[in-house]
């Protein structure tokens, strides 16, 4: 008797979940309005922090705290990501075994294009981030892909970000239901609570930017990926966007997904799109 009951219960809850999923999908598809979302997102932060200059939001915690900003500006005179930048520049110019270089894989030779990443690839029907494109380029030229969370990838993206410094973020969402779905999926991931701490990205970066979380000041979500990749004193090393997502997850005691998982690429797509117009400030230095 008990077994049959739990079986029944399981079936009902499964059906419920399935129904919720499809309905959300159907409802979401026609309701998704990235332009309105981006405007609302930016206005939320502009109103919450009226005296922070719009372009300052890309400086994360330093836009929230004067003392920290002074320490940062002093560090920026001789930033700790200097070595990664030089290494990235050298790697970018070093040809692969087959003679080609990264410049052959990217529009404009890969210089000054970081602000258009991530983009939605209509052939593949999914979001392609700068890190994924770099590894694609390596594999297309017979080279082994780099780890998404280690220094080589950080050095490459640091150099490409540096060539786009100051250019406004310029992410496009093609009129393609799959692109809208990816944007929505990213937005859902951003607001979904996870881990035993039961935090979502928004719990910290929307509800309490500027406040301290133990020794650190929380960065606002607006413009938070504009500074990627970042040199973090805590890691005493470079960190790619993937490394940041993975470590953020484990801090809330959520088991991280594999780097460049759909959710991570989509949430980067969402965060980059809503920051359109704000300057690229990568590579960044952070606590």
């Amino acid at each position, binding site marked *: 008797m008990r077994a049959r009951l739990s079986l029944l219960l399981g079936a009902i809850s499964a059906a419920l979940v399935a129904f919720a999923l499809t309905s959300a999908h159907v409802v979401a598809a026609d309701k998704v309005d990235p332009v309105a979302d981006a405007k609302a997102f930016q206005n939320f932060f502009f109103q919450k922090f009226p005296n922070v200059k719009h372009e300052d939001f890309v400086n994360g915690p330093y836009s929230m705290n004067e*003392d*920290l900003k002074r*320490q940062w500006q*002093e*560090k920026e005179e001789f930033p*700790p990501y200097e070595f990664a930048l030089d290494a990235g520049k050298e790697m970018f110019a070093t040809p692969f075994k087959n003679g080609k270089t990264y410049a052959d894989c990217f529009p404009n030779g890969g210089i000054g294009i970081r602000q258009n990443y991530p983009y939605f690839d209509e052939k593949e029907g999914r979001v392609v981030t700068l890190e994924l494109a770099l590894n694609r380029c390596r594999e297309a030229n017979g080279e082994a892909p780099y780890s998404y969370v280690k220094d080589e990838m950080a050095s490459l993206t640091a150099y490409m970000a540096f060539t786009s410094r100051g250019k406004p973020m310029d992410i496009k969402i093609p009129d393609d239901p799959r692109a809208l779905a990816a944007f929505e999926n990213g937005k859902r991931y951003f607001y979904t609570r996870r881990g035993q*701490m039961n*935090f979502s990205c928004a719990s*910290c970066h929307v509800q309490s930017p500027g406040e301290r*979380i*133990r*020794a*650190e000041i929380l960065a606002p979500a607006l413009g938070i990926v504009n500074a990627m990749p970042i040199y973090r*004193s*805590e890691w*005493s090393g470079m960190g790619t966007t993937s490394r940041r997502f993975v470590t953020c997850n*484990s*801090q*809330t*005691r959520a088991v991280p997904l594999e780097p460049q998982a759909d959710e991570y690429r989509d949430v980067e797509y969402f965060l980059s799109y809503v920051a359109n117009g704000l300057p690229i400030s990568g590579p960044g230095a952070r*606590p």
Partner: protein
Amino acid sequence: MTTTTGPHPTRRLILQGAASVALIGLGNLPFAAAHAAANDKYPEEAFKQKSEADAIKALYGRNAEPSDKVKLDAPEIAENGGVVPVSVTTTLDKVTSISFLVAENPFALAASYKIADGTIPGVANRLKMAKSTKLVAIVEADGKLYSATKDVKVTVGGCGG
């Protein structure tokens, strides 16, 4: 002194004896001198001392007195214990040495700088601090020691893990 095969071993022994006696006699002077002037060799001993008082004694041979002419700048809450920007400037003149000590670190002495004349008495660097600690800056000016201290809070960042 050592290369000659000296036919009169006794003479050499006497000479060596005399030399060593002289050394002992002067025992404290050269060391004191070594302490007073910023010695050239790496102050191995001072860097091995655990406590800040022992490290100062090993490095300079005497104690320092607090002075408001030594301006020590360090964050109240360290952004990160591994990279704490710390700097010191002073209006004292004839400065020959500046040192930084982090009291709560396993080994107190963090860094010691020799200031040649003509060099502005001031240094900025980035230090590691194991935990919330007293930070001490020592300035050796005209043979006397002056100090400034500041408390720095150090804790981890992030929310959990």
